[in-house]
């Protein structure tokens, strides 16, 4: 099971790969859509890649609540448990 720091690092790699945002910019306080310019289709791709990477399931209704990178890290951390 990944630690929060590992989740943060791996998630940043996924966001860089899919949306072209430099991994260093993918910080907990950053909003995916507002700050990182991730569009809605890329967000779906990121969620699916994160599900695969961390072995969790993130239902569509919950994705709406994941505004910031920190929200996503916390969600994945809890979902792993």
């Amino acid at each position, binding site marked *: 099971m990944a630690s929060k720091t590992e989740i943060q690092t791996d998630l940043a790699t996924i966001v860089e790969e*899919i*949306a*072209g945002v430099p991994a260093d910019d993918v910080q907990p306080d950053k909003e995916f859509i507002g700050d990182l310019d991730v569009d809605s*289709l890329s967000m*779906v*791709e990121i969620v*699916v890649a994160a*599900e695969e990477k961390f072995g969790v399931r993130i239902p569509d209704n919950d994705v709406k609540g994941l505004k910031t990178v920190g929200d996503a890290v916390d969600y994945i951390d809890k979902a792993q448990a």
Partner: protein
Amino acid sequence: MTSTRVLVTGLGTTSPLGGDVESTWSGLLEGRSGVDVLKHDWAEQLSTQIAAEVAVEPGDVLDRVKARRLDRSGQLALVAALEAWADAGFGDGGDSVDSERLAVAMASGIGGVTTLLNNYDSLRDKGPRRVSPLAIPMLMPNGPAAAIGLSIGAKAGVHTPVSACASGNEAIALGIDLIRLGRADVVVVGGTEAAVHPLPMAAFGQMMALSKRNDEPALASRPWDKGRDGFVLGEGAAVLVLESEAHATARGAKVYAEASGAGVTADSHDIAQPDPAGLGATRAMKIALRESGLSAADVVHINAHATSTPQGDVAEAGAIKNALGDASGGVVLTSTKSMTGHLLGAAGALESVSVVLALHHRVVPPTINLDDPEDIGLDIATEKRDLPAEGDLAALNNSFGFGGHNVAVAFKSV
């Protein structure tokens, strides 16, 4: 008929012979074959294991994130379009165009077939959650046209002619119309195809359409040769920037040639076989000449559709003789597919680029692999051939497609 002249002011390609126009054109003049044995694991199960894949990986040329949101056909199209756009002088820091007077007509025969089939594999093997949210915009046939339109800011309409192997030429015909109708000043036209995938190859194989000369790939595409046994599948994209004479003159654009007219007809004969008398093809050529104000005797060069299938090549030769009459004896004929393979929906566009460059440089590329020619009664260039150094020249590019589509486009030297 309106008198608006339509000029070709930019060219771009990514082809089996090269990643740009310069390398593609030099490959054509050298008589180099772009056909090779497929390295993919899946090729082993097919009766045809050769194809003409593009010389440069398009995803490596584009911005990485942009590339992964496009089907390979869209990647090829965008690379070619950006080259043509810059070549026309519209690239970064170049001339500007009123976006509401700028259109795109980018054709495809098959569309994003690799995206479609790969996503079907994901659905079957891993479930619906693994289907890409980008699958639809990537697989739809107008995806490449939309990507180009977005990239250059075209707002006068973004179109996708789909007429099998006549698609690329039909896009050029549409572009000429859009300018003549006054709907646009500049139209980016062309075709793209990326169907080197086991399903299309198996399907063409089941039609007995593909060459099986797996041991001699460079010799497999041999239009008009008695030893031909079908076409070789190619992939790539080609783009021309068409522009009204007034717009091109106002900005002092470099001009390659005039796209003077087009003939679009249908056989209404059979789902796949051409009309054996070639009447539709004949009419397409005659209409292109009439629209251009040309007589048969003005035509010095025809880039034939000539795919290297036994039925098609001979039917086309008959149609050329019918369309041009006695003047067909003065025409230098070539089939660039002997080198590039058959690019399906991109074929007409790539071959129009070849015709435009032939008029511009006054030299016709050779047809290779013509060792034992059919007696078609026409002059086929087997070595590159100089055209007259002086005077006005005119040429035709022919494309015909399954479904009975025939498109001939006429070009004039400037």
